[in-house]
């Protein structure tokens, strides 16, 4: 409701302004074209978030200085701290980067965004920038119509840049004409009141336009045409800095707890920087004057001095906050907390992770690992073994043989509580990711992950079926039937152990190829039990009823093992695409398994 009122109010103010002044129209159109240019550039850069940016982000967050450097470089290139924040929050939500790394990127983005003021003040106002806009727009639009995603991305970036230049041009022209009819500088407010008032206006303008660049552009062009005093312009720049945190805050609404912490750290950083800038405004002004002299900036070139001020106070902010980054992370982790997540609630699937395909795939992979952890505990209980026993180095056959009594458990209930909801959430999330435009290999990855999630569900369901008879016969006084059930239990427990080793990277099972051994063993166990079964019935050592149960359970055990191995060969595959593909080519299929079994004979 309030949003509708605000939009109506904005429309009314703009319409009144357009009716009163043609120059105001030009200024407003300049802002609109500039903002459209920013949107087009963001769209263009999104085309490159398919792999390159993610690869860089992963490789550049292990050290703080690298994170800061990444923030500076990407924001300078993209001229949008908003997109960098959204990608960072997305990666943080998927658990791909650490909170400290994310904070480093945000610090860097704040520094990178200061290059915008230099571009507007140094290039936008000093050269006839509209002349560059035209070819950029013409070339850009041709590329936008190309099929290739990469060319399309370049097209959007060039078009965006063209619109940015055009917007700057229109605003400059508008303000130049505006000053002949209207003197905004008459509304200048001096002193501390002016500082606070204009900082407030800067915040409001940036929140409304969702772009600190647009606020800076208005500020610099108004300053250049003397419609604004230098002091008030400085205050607007401080306000724009605080307002720019809005994108990150909005982006964090759908993020997990670390995403929310990052948005809060962004706000804290920009607020602290602003307070320091307001308190030290005289000293900063003096420093700008001294540095301007050194850099050869004319004493009356207030636009470049504003750009220098913007850089200086952001640098001061980083210098002040950097030594306390560890404490900041500690504080955020203590202050921003969430209820302990339940085992059945998704931990990684959230709106923020949906924003970038790589983050979405990684979030899905981590959630399926979570699902597997839940399933592992249920299957272990279904085999009447403790999860710790499977994870240890104990002799599994001996642990199985030591079972004297099997406690009753309700696998149906455990499945409903810990598997079904999570599996449904994973399937829904994958469908939402696939509704977006994705590179082909990402779509394939998601299909394989959906299959892995289904494998886990099937394994738990088969465990439920097998458990009924297993409870009856695995602690049976008839040694022959018990022996067969024990061998099924040992085999499945061994597969669970090997998957655990593969997941943690310890032990013999170091690649998905090591699980091929399990496939061969499963096949051999199935055949051996079926042969033994015939002999046991013939010799009347087990009843026909027992034999039927064992035959069914043998099929269930085979299903559990096969589903688990298939799941693990997808879920725990290598990250590097080409190596992963090569490894998957070498895994043994049914014909190869048959050959291995025949070789033994």
């Amino acid at each position, binding site marked *: 409701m309030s949003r509708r009122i605000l939009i109506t109010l904005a429309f009314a103010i703009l319409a009144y302004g357009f009716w009163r002044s043609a120059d105001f129209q030009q200024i407003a159109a300049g802002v609109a074209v500039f903002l459209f240019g920013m949107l087009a550039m963001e769209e263009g850069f999104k085309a490159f978030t398919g792999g390159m940016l993610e690869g860089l982000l992963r490789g550049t967050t292990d050290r703080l200085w690298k994170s800061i450097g990444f923030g500076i470089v990407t924001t300078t290139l993209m001229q949008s701290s908003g997109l960098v924040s959204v990608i960072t929050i997305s990666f943080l939500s998927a658990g791909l980067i650490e909170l400290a790394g994310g904070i480093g990127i945000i610090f860097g983005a704040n520094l990178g965004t200061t290059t915008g003021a230099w571009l507007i003040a140094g290039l936008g106002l000093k050269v006839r920038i509209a002349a560059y806009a035209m070819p950029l727009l013409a070339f850009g639009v041709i590329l936008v119509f190309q099929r290739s995603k990469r060319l399309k991305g370049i097209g959007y970036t060039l078009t965006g840049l063209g619109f940015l230049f055009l917007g700057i041009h229109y605003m400059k022209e508008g303000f130049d004409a505006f000053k002949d009819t209207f003197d905004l500088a008459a509304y200048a407010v001096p002193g501390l009141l002016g500082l606070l008032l204009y900082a407030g206006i800067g915040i409001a303008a940036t929140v409304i336009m969702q772009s600190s660049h647009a606020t800076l552009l208005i500020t610099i062009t108004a300053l250049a045409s003397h419609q604004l005093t230098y002091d008030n312009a400085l205050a607007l720049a401080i306000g724009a800095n605080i307002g720019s945190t809005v994108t990150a805050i909005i982006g964090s609404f759908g993020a997990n707890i670390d995403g929310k912490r990052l948005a809060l750290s962004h706000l804290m950083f920009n607020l602290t920087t602003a307070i320091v800038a307001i308190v030290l405004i005289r000293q900063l002004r003096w420093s700008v004057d001294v540095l301007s002299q050194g850099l050869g900036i004319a004493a009356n070139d207030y636009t470049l001095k504003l750009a220098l001020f913007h850089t200086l106070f952001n640098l001061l902010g980083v210098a002040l906050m950097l030594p306390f980054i560890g404490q900041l992370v500690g504080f955020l982790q203590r202050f921003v907390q969430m209820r302990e997540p339940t085992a059945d609630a998704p931990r990684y699937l959230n709106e923020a992770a949906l924003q970038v395909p790589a983050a979405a795939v990684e979030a899905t992979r981590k959630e399926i690992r979570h699902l597997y952890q839940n399933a592992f505990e249920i299957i272990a209980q279904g085999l009447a073994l403790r999860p710790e026993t499977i994870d240890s180095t104990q002799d599994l056959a001996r642990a199985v043989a030591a079972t004297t009594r099997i406690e009753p458990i309700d696998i149906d209930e455990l499945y409903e509580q810990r598997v079904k909801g999570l599996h449904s959430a994973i399937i829904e999330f994958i469908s939402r990711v696939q509704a977006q435009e994705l590179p082909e290999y990402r779509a394939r990855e998601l299909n394989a992950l959906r299959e892995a999630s289904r494998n886990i569900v099937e394994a738990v369901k088969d465990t439920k079926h097998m458990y009924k008879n297993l409870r009856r016969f695995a602690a049976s006084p008839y040694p022959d039937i018990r022996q067969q059930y024990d061998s099924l239990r040992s085999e499945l427990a061994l597969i669970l152990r090997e998957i655990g080793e593969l997941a943690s990277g310890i032990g013999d099972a170091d*690649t998905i*190829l090591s699980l*091929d*051994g399990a496939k*061969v*063993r499963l096949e051999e166990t199935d055949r051996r039990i079926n042969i033994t079964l015939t002999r046991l019935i013939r010799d009347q050592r087990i009843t026909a009823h027992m034999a039927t149960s064992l035959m069914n359970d043998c099929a269930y055990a085979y299903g559990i093992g096969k589903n688990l191995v298939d799941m693990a060969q997808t879920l725990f595959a290598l990250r590097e695409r*080409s*190596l992963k*593909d*090569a*490894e998957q*080519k*070498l*895994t*043994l299929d049914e014909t*190869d398994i048959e*050959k*291995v079994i025949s*070789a*033994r004979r």
Partner: protein
Amino acid sequence: MKTKKLLSKLADLLNADRRAQIENVRCIKEILKKLKKKERDLKEKLDEEDDPDKRAEIDAKLRVIYAQRTKGVGILQELRGDGCTPA
């Protein structure tokens, strides 16, 4: 470098399929190397092992690795168009 060699390198660079094939060969060779090392280690273990159950376990692993290596060499042959079998 001779012009012909340079041109062939340039052609490889521009041909995406060829590039993917080269990458494929590199990866399979890397995996085969690791498998060979694993096979050697297991053979050493087998020589030192007396327990028949443990020996059977190692032997089963060796058979799987041999099958994987055979498969890998086959794929490599197809990719390169030459012929060799695992040692």
